[in-house]
């Protein structure tokens, strides 16, 4: 029933993160489906720059009024930037999940990006879960 926006230019994980290549880094955030499911986001906890993560590792936490969810790294590598503005304005994730609501940037250590879902496959994956 709900309408979701999954830009074609992004790749997606089964944990509802998106990933976008920007030069030699990959920027990560949560999908429109994730932010709609969570509802009003009130708190985002992100790791320090320099933290090394493996694909599938929890790297942070996102909280809405009612729920707490882990954020999972879709790819392995070193975290080279975090969106510090989200500490002050977590609602940005609801307002602009693919833009100002980005979470971290990773310098990848593997070629995992190519294994992530296309927008079309992710949309199907979301639909299967809703049915």
């Amino acid at each position, binding site marked *: 029933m709900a309408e979701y926006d999954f830009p074609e230019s992004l790749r997606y994980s089964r944990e509802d993160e998106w990933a976008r290549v920007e030069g030699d880094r990959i920027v990560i955030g949560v999908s429109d489906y994730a932010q709609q499911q969570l509802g009003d986001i009130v708190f985002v906890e992100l790791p320090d720059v320099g933290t090394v993560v493996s694909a599938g590792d929890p790297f942070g936490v996102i*909280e809405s009024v009612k729920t*707490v969810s882990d954020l999972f790294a879709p790819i392995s590598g070193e975290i080279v930037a975090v969106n510090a503005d989200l500490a002050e304005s977590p609602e940005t994730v609801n307002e602009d999940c693919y833009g100002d609501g980005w979470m971290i940037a990773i310098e990848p250590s593997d070629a995992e990006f190519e294994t992530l879902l296309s927008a079309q496959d992710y949309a199907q994956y979301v639909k299967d879960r809703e049915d």
Partner: protein
Amino acid sequence: MSDAAALRRTPLHARHVALGARMVPFGGWDMPVQYTGILDEHRAVRESAGLFDVSHMGQIWLRGPEAVAVAERLVTCPVASLRPGRVRYGLLCNERGGVVDDVTVYRVADDELFLCVNAANIEKDYRWVVRHAGEADVRDQSDATGLLAIQGPEAAGLMTRLGDPDPGTLKRFRFRETKVASVPALVSRTGYTGSDGFEIYLPAGETETVFDALLEAGAQPAGLGARDTLRLEAALPLYGHELDDETTPLEAGLDRFVKLAEGGFLGAEALRAQSEAGVERRLVGFVLDERGVARADHALARDGETLGRVTSGAPSPTLGKSIGLGYVPAGFAETGTRLDVLIRDRAVAAHVVDVPFVTKASVGGQTGG
């Protein structure tokens, strides 16, 4: 998903789904947690009017010459002195003083009253009441009863538009039988939000008529998510969180709803003994001094030592801070006491504050007397 079939539904279930509500299990019922969003619905109640379906709650009626005496023995608040048309909040306690449920008592007539009880406790309460009812006639009329709560500074105006002659003259904790949108209703000036408002008891089959009429008049539908943040700002206890069979009303700070001096109710001896000895733990309200959200079951600690547990916690939309309730040893209950909330193994600073967190004055809405 497979459990959804086992969940009970209120008469408005299809309306909630049609309005796009997100449905969640609550106390055995499939209930709307939100429609547009919890913060939006919370704001509607504080600033205009929010409409809740609380038909999942139960109504247990007591009738007959013994009804009042039976209720007097069952609940911690005085009942005989409660005049017809008035409501009181009280607790059903077990012999140990633990809380079986928290209820509102409606004195309908000299020999007729009902208890409005929590949805998850209907069967337990009914058995408890029957066990102690003597000759009184006890009936669980929950399934035949719909219940709406219209809450917020504009609630009285909406009731007037639906034909209630003069809702403003109904004082807090009083009720009367009237018609709302031409449907016979018992309207009471009560609620569970800390804002002014009304609760409307209806024949189950006509609940939808009144629900739709209130939406039409401008009320915003509000779900259990906002109901929870609203009641938490008002520091109203939620059964299963602040209250349970092992927790006493004195520990929960509900002394003023317990007729300790008069006695004569179930649990009175245990509560009197506890009152004389002094409670060992107390429910406190706290505010986080740092970012984060306290949640039920987080530990409350000081200097690395766990003192107790959070029972409810949420970001307060009105205050813009994280607030919570929890139990600590009585020596740590003073206002201003510094505590840590352990959130994912991190100690987040908090301090004990006076409750309610939000008063009508801080909301700025007009008061209901």
